[in-house]
């Protein structure tokens, strides 16, 4: 077998691939089932953006916390939230990660360090600062990571958090997942600065921009930033330039996109394809190994959907529980 030119060993490469593939199949399946009318509510798919979640989360442990966005499925899966519980949640079942009370936009699992998807743009940034503060106060070497879209990077809560993290020298990391659009509006119009490195500099933060469809670029940049944060070196901003395979939410006709745009990015900027080609070409992982994972993932998703559909709905009494610890 050839030498491994990658910064991850074979096990971790397989793990990263499995994460990305799981996210992809999860989302592709939701896309189909949503169109069938099986799934209620707003659903925002992460398909196409998997390398960001995987490249970052490969560095994290359960005591590292992340605060996610409305487009949170990928972050959940990469952070280790149970896929069965996620699917059941999206189907509004009592076996869901949030017992059916949260839905797609609010999946959380604090035991895994996943502080929640969030329906409010920018809201995760202060929360991640809080996680970073808790880690700092306890001295446990943990980090707090906030994900934010290009659109949400104009939200006051996010901007304030950059300054707060810098002033308090928190082990906080701000990942801007730049997929070029906020709903239908172009990033290049709505974000007045060309480079997120400049925006970070405006708050005294180091900023790094990477090709978010390149798992290895994300992995290496994130690794460096996370290591520095753990060692007390303070916060940073990481921009991942990426692509969104589907609409803003399911049901979006996407007429604001260029003709052929989606086909083009699917052909040339599919982060999973790019990853697979690299590891196969390097001779480190075989196509058969990846295909075996593909199959396992498909089975997992199929099983999760089946389980979700047959899982019990929340009992009426659930309406009134879980508001307070005690009242």
């Amino acid at each position, binding site marked *: 077998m050839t030498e491994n030119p990658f910064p991850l060993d074979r096990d971790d490469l397989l793990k990263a691939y499995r994460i990305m593939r799981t996210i992809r199949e999860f989302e592709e399946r939701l896309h189909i089932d949503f169109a069938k009318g099986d799934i209620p509510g707003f659903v925002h798919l992460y398909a196409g953006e998997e390398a960001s979640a995987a490249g970052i989360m490969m560095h994290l442990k359960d005591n590292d916390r992340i605060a996610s966005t409305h487009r949170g499925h990928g972050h959940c899966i990469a952070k280790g939230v149970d896929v069965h519980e996620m699917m059941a949640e999206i189907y509004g079942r009592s076996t869901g990660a949030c017992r*059916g009370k949260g*839905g797609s*936009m*609010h999946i959380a699992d604090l035991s895994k360090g996943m502080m929640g998807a969030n329906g409010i743009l920018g809201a995760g940034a202060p929360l991640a600062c809080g996680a970073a503060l808790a880690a700092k106060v306890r001295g446990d070497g943990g980090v707090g990571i906030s994900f934010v879209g290009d659109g949400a990077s104009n939200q006051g809560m996010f901007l304030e958090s950059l300054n707060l993290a810098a002033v308090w020298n928190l082990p906080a990391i701000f990942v801007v997942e730049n997929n070029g659009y906020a709903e239908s509006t*172009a990033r290049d*119009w709505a974000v007045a600065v060309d480079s997120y490195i400049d925006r970070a500099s405006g708050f005294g933060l180091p900023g790094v921009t990477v090709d978010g469809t390149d798992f290895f670029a994300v992995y290496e940049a994130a690794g460096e930033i996370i290591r520095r944060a753990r060692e007390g070196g303070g916060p940073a901003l990481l921009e991942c330039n990426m692509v969104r395979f589907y609409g803003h939410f399911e049901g979006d006709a996407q007429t604001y996109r260029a003709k052929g745009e989606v086909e083009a990015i699917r052909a040339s900027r599919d982060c999973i394809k790019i990853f697979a080609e690299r590891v196969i070409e390097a001779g480190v992982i075989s196509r058969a190994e990846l295909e075996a994972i593909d199959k396992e993932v498909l089975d997992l998703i199929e099983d999760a959907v089946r389980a979700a559909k047959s899982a019990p709905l*929340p009992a009426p009494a659930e309406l*009134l529980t879980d*508001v307070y610890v005690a009242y």
Partner: protein
Amino acid sequence: MARKISMKQAINEALDLEMTRDPSVIVMGEDIVGGTGSPGEDDAWGGVLGVTKGLHAKHGNRLMDTPLSESAYIGAAIGAATCGLRPVAELMFIDFMGVCFDQIFNQAAKFRYMFGGKAETPVVIRAMVGAGFRAAAQHSQMLTPIFTHIPGVKVVCPSNAYDAKGLLIQSIRDNDPVIFCEHKNLYGLECDVPAESYAIPFGEANVLRDGGDVTIVSYGLTVHRAMEAAEALAKDKVEAEVIDLRTLSPIDWDTVIDSVERTGRLVVVDEAHPRCSIASDVAAFVGQNAFGALKAGVQMVTAPHVPVPFSPVLEDLYIPNAAAIADAARRTLAPTGTSPRSIAA
């Protein structure tokens, strides 16, 4: 000439008419045009649910997409209003008020008073309210009580297309800040709406159904549940008078009190949470000012003191329904003193 159009179309039409009539009307919000800066079609969205669709083609740059910065653009609308424009700013979901409330309640609402009557702030903030869309806790709130509590803003919440058109036109012409609440689950509901322009004055409730036995007061979506309840009650020979408040601030106390003086019984229905709600507001006012007329305690039917759940089975229980309203009406008809204490968890 009246045709059947949906509440969504009625709102679009009101904006269109006022933009045509008055060049100082501008409209802004996130993706209210859609596709700004993007490579595809222009006017690609017309708002997240298509309410402003087509207006950009007609009115051009007087409709403006915004970056995702609610404090900045809602505040800009307010600032522009003090400079003579009549901006209509869309806050996509009322739930987002938490990121821009200062501009609404400390700025727009207080300018006139703080400045000794020397400012006018004719701004309209349109926002979707209400549950039933399976949109979970952060996209389904009512929050009307919070705005109604604040002196200096007016609060409007229509229950149908006809009212939506007339009240939005009034809101745009009004010289005070108006929070215009659009129930997302009413967007598709059609009714007869004249094509012409007309304004419905604020502070005039609508009596949707006459009845002498019990008064049911509500606004927004639950007006329809109240009407269903009234029909169910009619089968039991109980005639309910149903009042649609239409505007919560100002509020039409006269119509409510006059009705209660005739029926002696009142049910207030509110999709908001129970504490410090529109329901408690109306119940308390009537209890203070028409106590002598009341033959039974005022019954409140509200959403429970819990966030809006995602799961459809729970969400359907969350919104006050016709059965609960009819039950409350029946309680007012039972001998007094028997009503159980009722405030959900």
